[in-house]
């Protein structure tokens, strides 16, 4: 069975919401559509208070090369362009829309019918993806059109669809794979056409046998796309790890996936691409998992972007009594939610409730030099050393020891028997080192 070559850990997979079919979440009364939904510059609003908008209508333009437009997820009246607090409590600009009915833009094909024929050519596909504001839904929310346009001199050789979903608890990709397998495959085929490549892979971890079975069945109609079953190991869904696992090529240090000829896209992104290209539907909906052992019910919701998280939490019975932490994303790399009133974003994948026992940090004790962090690090780094150097402020040595290669997957802290907060220190030091490196004039 295939997997990546260095490090990794085995957290319990806890996919307790795996059997909850995707339900459409009711449209909220007021939608708060954030302008910072993607990596890069926030979008620039093009609507004014009082404007009537329809579902799918453009409300903000991309602001620069690495940016994406934002579309309304509801129909109604723009109440205003306000500063709201995101889930970390930081202020961000948002278009606030009072919902009236559910009127969609006419050009969107709302039928259930699967459109298999890809009519657009490569350039038109990329333009459509850009217009529809599709961003990577695997966590980083990098604009998809940018990823599908390799820089000059680099050539894509194959596309990998990331269905690993190696984070515990999360099941949104899994539900998409078993409920909409063909759409994902068509989405993959579209992106392959856009990249002008003939080889595609869908990597799925072995703890999702149902998804592997259905996808293998459906993929028979798409001979260019191969379903690859992967051994369960975190962080398999990391871009660099997935390329290593599926095709055995390693992204060079400081390099990009395209250096190995690979383009990696998430399952959710493939679905969004399908809907954008075949159905002309911009990205304004997402699939979210509401889960946690302390949660009375686990759900997979299809939500409109801009729905307040608190609304969705109410629907499952409010914040559970036993919950000590709410997390947006998985327990390994997700962000703790400080503000439950924050709205959902394009890239939101879950709200996970953990109890104090599950999540509370234990008191740090002395490093016993067991080397488990080295064993676990999927990038072959020495977290214990980086932590020590970071505390001493030795920036040169940190760079020497490749702190910039850290993918912040959390394996080191997960595995550390002494509960040393390795990643906390390393993450900060990495940001500082990268700042120094960027400020340096380029070589030659």
């Amino acid at each position, binding site marked *: 069975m295939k997997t990546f070559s260095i490090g990794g850990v085995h957290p319990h997979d806890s996919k307790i919401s795996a059997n909850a079919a995707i339900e459409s979440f009711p449209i909220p009364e007021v939608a708060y559509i954030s302008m910072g939904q993607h990596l890069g510059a926030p979008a620039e609003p093009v609507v004014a208070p009082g404007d009537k908008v329809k579902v799918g209508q453009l409300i903000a333009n991309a602001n620069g090369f690495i940016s994406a437009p934002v579309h309304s997820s509801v129909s109604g009246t723009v109440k205003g362009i306000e500063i709201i607090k995101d889930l970390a409590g930081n202020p961000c600009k948002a278009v606030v829309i009072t919902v009236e009915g559910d009127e969609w833009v006419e050009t969107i094909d709302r039928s259930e019918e699967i459109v298999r024929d890809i009519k657009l050519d490569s350039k038109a596909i990329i333009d459509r993806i850009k217009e529809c504001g599709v961003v990577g839904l695997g966590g980083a929310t990098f604009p998809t059109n940018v990823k599908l346009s390799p820089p000059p001199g680099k050539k894509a050789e194959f596309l990998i669809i990331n269905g690993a979903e190696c984070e515990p608890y999360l099941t949104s990709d899994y539900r998409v794979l078993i409920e909409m397998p063909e759409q994902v495959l068509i989405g993959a085929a579209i992106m392959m056409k856009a990249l002008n490549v003939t080889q595609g892979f869908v990597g799925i971890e072995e703890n999702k046998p149902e998804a592997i079975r259905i996808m293998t069945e459906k993929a028979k109609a798409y001979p260019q796309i191969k379903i690859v079953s992967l051994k369960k190991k975190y962080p398999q869904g990391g871009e660099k790890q997935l390329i290593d696992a599926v095709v055995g090529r390693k992204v060079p240090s400081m390099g990009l996936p395209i250096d190995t000829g690979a383009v990696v896209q998430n399952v959710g992104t493939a679905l969004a691409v399908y809907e954008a290209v075949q159905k002309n539907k911009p990205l304004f909906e997402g699939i979210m998992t509401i889960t946690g052992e302390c949660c009375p019910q686990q759900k997979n919701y299809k939500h409109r972007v801009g729905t307040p998280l608190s609304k969705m939490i109410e629907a499952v019975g409010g914040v559970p009594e036993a919950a000590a932490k709410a997390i947006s994303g998985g327990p390994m790399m997700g962000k703790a939610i400080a503000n439950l009133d924050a709205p959902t974003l394009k890239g939101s994948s879950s709200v996970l409730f953990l109890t104090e026992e599950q999540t*509370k940090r234990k008191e740090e004790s002395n490093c016993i030099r067991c080397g488990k962090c080295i064993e676990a690090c999927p990038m072959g780094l020495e977290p214990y050393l980086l932590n020590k150097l970071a505390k001493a402020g030795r920036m040169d040595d940190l760079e020497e020891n490749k702190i910039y290669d850290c993918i912040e997957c959390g394996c080191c802290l997960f595995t550390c028997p002494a509960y040393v907060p390795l990643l906390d220190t390393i993450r900060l030091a990495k940001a500082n080192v990268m700042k120094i490196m960027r400020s340096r004039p380029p070589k030659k």
Partner: protein
Amino acid sequence: MSTTIIFTVASLSVLGLLLAVVLYFVAQKFKVEEDPRIDIVEAIMPGANCGGCGQAGCRAFAEACTKAENLDNLFCPVGGNATMKKVADALGFEVSEKAPMVAVVRCNGTCENRPKTSVYDGVASCAVKSALYAGDTGCKYGCVGCGDCVKVCNFGALSMDPATGLPVVDEEKCAACGACVKACPKGVIELRNKGPKNRRVFVSCVSQDKGAVARKACKAACIGCGKCAKVCPFEAIKVENNVAYIDFNKCKLCTKCVAECPTGAIHKVNFPEKPAAPAVEKPAETNVNQEK
């Protein structure tokens, strides 16, 4: 036996002599010419190597002094005017007196004034915490309370007050080196004039939130109402980004603004207790909505 001893002593002596000669020539060859005044200036320095002057340490500062044309841009905050006078004498420079400075914590978000909205559970570092999120209170601008400033202080002048959760500056010990100013990720700490008889007036808040938001997060926040700026006879107060700032070069310590502030965000320190106006005035509830 005696020949052995003589032979040993003699051979070792010859060896020692030879090596000494070699070392002497090597030392001559690789000798670094240095301005002898550097040593003189360094001897005058306090030797804290705190970096408060902007140089790597006391020796680097001494070197900079000897190379400089004048001492206008060089100042040792730890040694203060007395040290700089000595340095100037040693190097034959003129030096102008500089007002002594002190670190001031501009946040009044005590546990009582600024209730917690979440519990931070990561490593105790302000830098990590402020990079992670807006903070465990409703205010994203104020002190996050993990004591990075305390950790960097070389003079033991800072300590966390467990009752308020805020750092406290010991004026006696503070050398105004500015290490805490650099360490604070929120820019809460500022170096200000120590003032005559150590008396100072300053706005103890840096929140750029609009009045109502700031007020909701913290009872003692500056709401940017501008009353202080209106009442100030010396035009020392400016309100920008919803927060007032007192220019300590213009302020004449009349303390009119302290009385005017509706939330008690303006503090005066080391004034005689007589007028019975405590530093933190309980704000009157009626003034809350007078934001601008």
